[in-house]
């Protein structure tokens, strides 16, 4: 059987132009199938890692998913705020270990601005329980100081000491600016692979300060308070968007959730991140399924195309097969030859597809990090992708049996003298 391999390779090389095209189709299909699967997994692990240490996310009453999306992932706009009194209630609750207040809504060149306090640097956890660390500088200490996520600093080329201007609202360029009150970068966080990387962090007081002379989302006409005078005003926060809560004991999570939702001061929502994410994935399941089925179909079409090309070439190869028969190839050698050819092509297509997948993952990483704070788990092959590769190989093998079987029949019927 082994003497057939060089023959199969030479024969395939002889038809390389046609086969190359079908190879590209198989490679694209493989890359698509695995790419969709990768994106799905990376989104799931990425989303889960961003709230790994948080037991409850609390905000003004809203849908759990919405609250999660804007407070943790900084996607979408917050709709309502909660009073500072509620933050104090949470922080003082006997079951609560820590509470991180977050105030959102502004942006810097498309990156979201998060106003928070020291608790953020002390207690926020991501990944498998890692806390935040600084690659440069220190936490903010005064009103007009900012700490950047790794992606913001990297993308915009900022370092400690840089002055930045924040915009009101989430828009990248057209939004109204807080040009009169620039911030100074005092620290840059190490990369986390979560939305923290693309956030600009300031103090809650800083957030109050830049909105002193604002009302209802616009600068007040005729009133302008210069930066050096803001400390004369009361800068203590009046309201925040959400609070990330860590409990002393996880076991208390349901009772605390019930108590928070029954809080008298104002209507609040308390969300278990895991539950909300499960809801999110449930919502996405149909879409994911459709995407999966589609990429499966694309793969099927490409493999069928491969089989069709090999099948179509058989007519011109009837002579070749007859000659092989005349020099001693048995029908089962012909069967093996054609199967081998199909298999070699599928393996090549698979290899090319994997290469393409690596390139795609590598190329899309910066974009995913900038826009979603997602960091791919790994560019190279992952364990859970192996079954897919096996499946492609199996289906490819089966689909190459069809032309092989036809060649076998032809070689039996033609004998040594092909009739065309």
């Amino acid at each position, binding site marked *: 059987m082994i*003497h057939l391999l060089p*023959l199969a390779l*030479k*024969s395939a*090389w*002889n038809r390389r132009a046609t086969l190359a095209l079908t190879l590209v189709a198989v490679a694209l299909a493989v890359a698509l199938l695995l790419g969709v699967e990768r994106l799905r997994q990376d989104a799931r692990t990425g989303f889960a890692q961003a709230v790994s240490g948080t037991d409850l996310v609390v905000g003004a009453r809203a849908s759990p998913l919405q609250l999660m999306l804007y407070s943790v992932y900084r996607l979408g706009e917050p709709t309502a705020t909660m009073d500072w009194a509620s933050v104090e209630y949470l922080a003082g609750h006997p079951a609560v270990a820590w509470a991180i207040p977050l105030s959102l809504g502004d942006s810097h060149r498309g990156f979201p601005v998060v106003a928070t306090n020291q608790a953020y640097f002390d207690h926020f956890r991501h990944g498998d329980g890692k806390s935040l660390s600084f690659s440069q500088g220190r936490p903010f200490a005064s009103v007009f100081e900012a700490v950047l996520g790794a992606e913001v600093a990297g993308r915009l080329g900022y370092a400690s000491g840089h002055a930045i201007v924040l915009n009101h609202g989430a828009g990248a360029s057209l939004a109204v600016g807080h040009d009169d009150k620039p911030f100074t970068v005092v620290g840059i966080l190490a990369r986390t692979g979560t939305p923290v990387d693309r956030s600009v962090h300031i103090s809650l007081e800083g957030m109050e300060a830049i909105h002193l002379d604002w009302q209802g989302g616009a600068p007040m006409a005729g009133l302008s308070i210069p930066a050096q005078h803001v400390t004369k005003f009361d800068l203590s926060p009046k309201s925040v968007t959400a609070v990330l809560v860590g409990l002393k004991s996880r076991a208390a999570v349901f009772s605390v959730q019930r108590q928070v939702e029954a809080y008298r001061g104002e209507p609040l929502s308390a969300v278990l991140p895991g539950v909300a994410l499960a809801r999110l994935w449930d919502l996405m399941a149909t879409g994911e399924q459709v995407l999966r089925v589609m990429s499966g179909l694309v793969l099927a079409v490409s493999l069928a195309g491969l089989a069709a090309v090999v099948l179509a070439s058989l007519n011109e190869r009837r*002579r*070749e097969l007859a*000659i*092989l*028969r*005349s*020099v*001693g*190839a*048995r*029908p*089962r*050698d012909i069967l093996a030859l054609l199967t081998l050819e199909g298999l070699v092509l599928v393996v090549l297509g698979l290899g090319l597809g994997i290469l393409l997948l690596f390139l795609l993952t590598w190329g899309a990483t910066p974009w995913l990090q900038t826009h979603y704070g997602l960091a791919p788990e790994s560019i190279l092959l992952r364990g859970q992708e192996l079954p897919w590769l096996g499946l492609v190989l199996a289906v490819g093998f089966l689909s190459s049996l069809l032309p092989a079987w036809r060649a076998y029949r032809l070689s039996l019927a033609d*004998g*040594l*003298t092909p009739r065309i």
Partner: protein
Amino acid sequence: MSESVLSLENLVFRWPGQGTACLDIPAFQVQAGEQLFLQGESGSGKSTLLNLVAGVLTPAQGRILALGRDLGRLGGSARDRFRVDHVGLIFQQFNLIPYLSVLDNVLLPTRFSPRRRHRAGDPVRAAAALLGHLDLDEALWSRPALQLSVGQQQRVAAARALIGQPEIILADEPTSALDAARQTAFLDLLRQECAAARSALLFVSHDLRLSAGFSRSVALADLQRDTP
């Protein structure tokens, strides 16, 4: 004393859907080392006969004894094995695999048959010797078969049929695409090499003029049973 390498006994073969039998041969023998010219009109069943002898087709009745073995009793793969071990084939045209080099084409039977490989000694040396004898320039050996002229291709096919010295060479009008001068030159070389390899040659053609130089010449029509 000569023994027969090939012997047909009451052979009847009918193509599916044909009214009369294509071949109906009571008796026919080819002796070892014999060079036999078999003449027949187009459509008379020459190629069919060669396919039977090569073990690709099986007769409806009768026996084909090749080297003492009854081909009809061998299974399909045993007949394939028999063919590559003992028979060399040359066709009218399109004998070569276009993308393989001349040398690789000649070596093909030795790749499929250990017996032929063994009898060839060093296969590459044997192929080179045959190609040399058949007047093929060494510069051509590594070229793809596709680039050869038809006459050159037929000589390569002859070298392939002869490598490993099979007992029987079957040639199905291998000269029909050549001009008259080339035909005789090719035939001379072929007969000479068959003699050197001590292979019996069964050469079929419709052109009786080519029969000169063969040890025996037979018309297929004379072999067929007289239809009343």
